[in-house]
């Protein structure tokens, strides 16, 4: 569908609404606060979003596949807990501890994929189970105590290239790579096909199992990578980290126009969704808005974004 329209028109259609929305938010906050438009503030936002970007990227792929992963926040908590315990109690060197955390993410993702496929369970149920299990495991390994690690892990987040933190650059690379994977490769096309109509995909010779398993493992690993980044920023691993993150990730994906019914979505637009939520949070905090107002506005923006997306889709479809 997308490939037939000229590239530039396609790009404008894809991103115009989101970019206008983002520009509007930045303008409003720029006018209502004193320092919002400063380089420091924008850099601060850039340094805050990497973990949300990574988790939302994984979530977008799962949603395109027509599935859902409710366990991303808990897996983030569990992987971070393992990282913390590995460094503070087992005294593993940083690279080994990071590898362990990523392995935890991969195992949780593999469990989600394998169990739901083996017994044909809805991923909603399996990942809901994992949401509990991974959170429980995070508390079990840490004894429910935040593990303070210190600068041994902090140096990852402190590293910066051209003023951007290492985590931000990692997140950008992951977004671009995942985007290419989803739109330019056979794997991506299979993912969309399965998400659109799994039975039809199967009948046309696509084996959905490998794709599903890969997407869930990938999402688990991205959650774990987000855990490494968060742990590094806070120099501490908190077993409650990532609580409720699954809903934020879904919100970002939905703002970016991802369909909860599968078959449609874009990692790049999800990235903009994350940025919009981050700008909104940061701007409302800069104004000093009351918490009830913050929540009202955030919810309203999500719904407004989805309504705008309905029009965007009509616009894209009309020429075809």
């Amino acid at each position, binding site marked *: 569908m997308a490939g037939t329209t000229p590239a530039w028109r396609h790009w404008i259609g894809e991103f115009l609404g989101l970019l206008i929305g983002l520009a509007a938010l930045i303008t409003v906050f720029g006018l209502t606060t004193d320092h919002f438009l400063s380089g420091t503030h924008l850099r601060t936002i850039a340094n805050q979003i990497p973990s949300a970007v990574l988790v939302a990227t994984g979530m977008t792929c799962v949603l395109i596949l027509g599935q859902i992963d409710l366990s991303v926040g808990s897996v983030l908590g569990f992987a971070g807990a393992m990282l913390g315990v590995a460094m503070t109690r087992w005294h593993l060197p940083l690279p080994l501890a990071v590898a362990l955390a990523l392995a935890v993410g991969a195992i949780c993702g593999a469990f989600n994929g394998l169990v739901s496929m083996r017994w*044909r369970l809805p991923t909603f149920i399996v990942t809901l189970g994992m949401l*509990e299990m991974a959170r*429980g495991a995070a508390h079990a390994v840490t004894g429910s105590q935040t593990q*303070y690690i210190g600068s041994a892990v902090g140096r990852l987040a402190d590293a910066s290239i051209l003023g951007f933190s290492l985590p931000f650059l990692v997140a950008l690379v992951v977004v671009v790579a995942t985007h290419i994977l989803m739109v330019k490769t056979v794997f991506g096309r299979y993912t969309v096909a399965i998400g659109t109509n799994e039975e039809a995909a199967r009948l046309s010779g696509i084996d959905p199992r490998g794709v599903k398993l890969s997407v869930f493992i990938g999402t688990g690993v991205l959650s774990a990578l987000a855990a490494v980044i*968060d742990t590094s*920023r806070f*120099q501490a691993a908190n077993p409650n*980290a990532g609580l409720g993150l699954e809903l934020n990730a879904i919100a970002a994906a939905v703002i970016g126009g991802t369909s909860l019914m599968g078959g449609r979505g874009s990692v790049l637009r999800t990235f903009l969704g994350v940025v919009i939520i981050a700008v909104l949070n940061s701007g409302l*905090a800069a104004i000093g808005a009351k918490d009830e107002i913050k929540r009202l506005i955030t919810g309203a923006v999500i719904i407004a974004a989805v309504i705008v997306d309905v029009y965007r889709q009509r616009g894209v479809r009309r020429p075809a």
Partner: protein
Amino acid sequence: MTSRSSTSASFPALLAALLTLILAGCGPSDAPSPPGATEAAKASSKPRVALIMKSLANEFFLTMENGARAHQKAHAADYELLANGIKDELDVARQIDMVEQMIAQKVDAIVIAPADSKALVAACAKAQAAGMVVVNIDNKFDQAVLDEKKVRIPFVGPDNRRGARKVGDHLAKQLKPGDAVAIIDGAPNAFNAVQRQLGFADAMAAAGMKVVTAQSGYWETDKANQVAAAMITEHPQLKALLCANDSMALGAVAALRAAGKQGQVLVVGYDNIGAVQSLLKEGRILATADQHADQIAVFGIEYALDLLKSGVAPADKETPVELVTAPAPTR
């Protein structure tokens, strides 16, 4: 699908097992004992004390419960302990269920850290009417609701406002009158969050500081981090961040580090969790408050046992809150 009928037969069973697992996660850790066992326990002279906690996923309440369990072990001859917590700190309905379960079990005393200072009053009044001793710990019941229900439930616990005041007073000594400060609050519907904010505000007002903004970090590191980052860019003149718990102080410290403002803005917390010990030593967190979590439930239980023995009219009892500051450099 028909080719795998053997597996699809197990589908409902597995689903049920999974759901049981999930539900068990919210259930009490000590399953209600069968009626026979209840009678047997009733027959023995040892009083049975039910400890009903908030979320055990919270380090503070876990420490509290562990303190209670250790106390029970040391006093095994004196009483039996039924300790339960809820999964989610805000799951008020689940906690009410738990109180009713304990009434049905005919325990002798209920020691409760209510998740909501108003919603739990009715259930506890019912327990009192059923002849049980009820002691309120940690989070004080709302006085207006107690009056309206015409019940008196003794409170044993720390004064969060006074604790926060101590932390704020200590911070004020490092500042000049007129300095700009910001407060990062806990969850706005929590009584102790409100008390801590009041305590911080009291201290800042007394010392002549200017609170330029106060916003909620919902007790969490990452939410506090976002709020703190926005505060320090929007108010570059800030001299201090007062955080209603230590997890949020960790987030504030990270925000300062990211903004390159370490050492320019002071941070204080509350709770004295293990994770802030080295930050206190390094001076990156100036002070926190220790409410001796491991002792709070113990005080409540001892209080309940005293009441069971003497039946004396209940009075409130304040437990100590200690200011914790960076240790003086020994070098």
